[in-house]
């Protein structure tokens, strides 16, 4: 009871939990409560209402879907450059640097967010911050799984149906405004480019798993370090 009173007084010192609209707001809330819980007393998990948890969860899911959309747009181009179907930097002479760079662009967005979320481990201290981080991360994981599943389906649909040579030939035959040479060039390019989609689908599945697992593992190890440091500090006092 005394602990609960202490917890609620610490909570009131920071104010009521706001419902975050974006990642930065969610991060700031976690930072604030992490600081309070690390320097003061731990706040009970009961302090967080269900709608606040849902707000953190939806920030996580949105983050995964937005980064997934970016990745879905860039990855086929990156794999296309890697397999030398797509020119990059205005040239068809693709160097090893260009291949490496194209793949780096494809993964930067997800890796960036993954690293960003990894830093949450520093605040994984008390009841409230743990619950908020868990809500955010479970939303991020759910969004990542939905994204990977959708991208996998759409890319295979593109490969088997939309870029099928017969389907392409029939579709282009209905467009009278383009010359036959231009049509043939475009069809040849698309038929070669279609091979990029199955590989891109698997690439996105693997990188999504990594971007979900890496922050979780990093948060786990950082939290252990923070906990050990706090216990050392307590034993000195």
């Amino acid at each position: 009871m005394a602990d609960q009173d202490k917890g609620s007084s610490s909570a009131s010192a920071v104010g009521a939990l706001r419902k975050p609209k974006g990642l930065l707001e969610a991060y700031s809330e976690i930072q604030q409560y992490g600081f309070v819980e690390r320097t003061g007393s731990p706040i009970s998990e009961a302090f967080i209402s269900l709608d606040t948890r849902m707000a953190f969860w939806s920030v996580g899911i949105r983050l995964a879907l937005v980064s997934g959309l970016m990745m879905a747009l860039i990855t086929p181009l990156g794999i296309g450059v890697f397999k030398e179907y797509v020119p990059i930097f205005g040239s068809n002479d693709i160097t090893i640097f260009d291949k490496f760079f194209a793949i780096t662009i494809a993964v930067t967005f997800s890796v960036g967010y993954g690293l960003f979320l990894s830093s949450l481990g520093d605040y994984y201290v008390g009841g409230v911050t743990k619950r908020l981080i868990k809500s955010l991360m479970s939303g991020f994981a759910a969004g990542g799984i939905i994204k990977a599943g959708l991208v996998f389906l759409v890319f295979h649909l593109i490969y088997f149906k939309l870029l099928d040579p017969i389907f392409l030939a029939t579709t282009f035959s209905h467009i009278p405004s383009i010359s036959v040479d231009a049509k043939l060039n475009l069809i040849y390019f698309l038929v070669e480019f279609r091979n990029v989609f199955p590989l891109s689908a698997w690439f996105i599945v693997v990188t999504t798993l990594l971007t979900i697992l890496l922050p979780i593992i990093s948060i786990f190890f950082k939290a252990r370090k923070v906990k050990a440091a706090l216990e050392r500090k307590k034993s000195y006092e």
Partner: protein
Amino acid sequence: MFQFEKYLASEEYAGIWAFLIDNFLTGFMARGIAVMSLVAAFWFLVYRRNTFAGVVLMIITIIVAYFGSALKYLLTL
């Protein structure tokens, strides 16, 4: 009605695009700009935690990397 061709001839307009493609969207210059903006995007996204700047720089990187080839192709159509 604003007449674009009255102020800029189509050859001149195509010339501007050719200049931009040759100088900023191809070769060494494009690679340099793309690498710098990608590093800056990563720095803003991860270190400074500025999502907006990170996303804008990512878009610039993608434009510099792929638009040169796309525009070249469109100009040859």
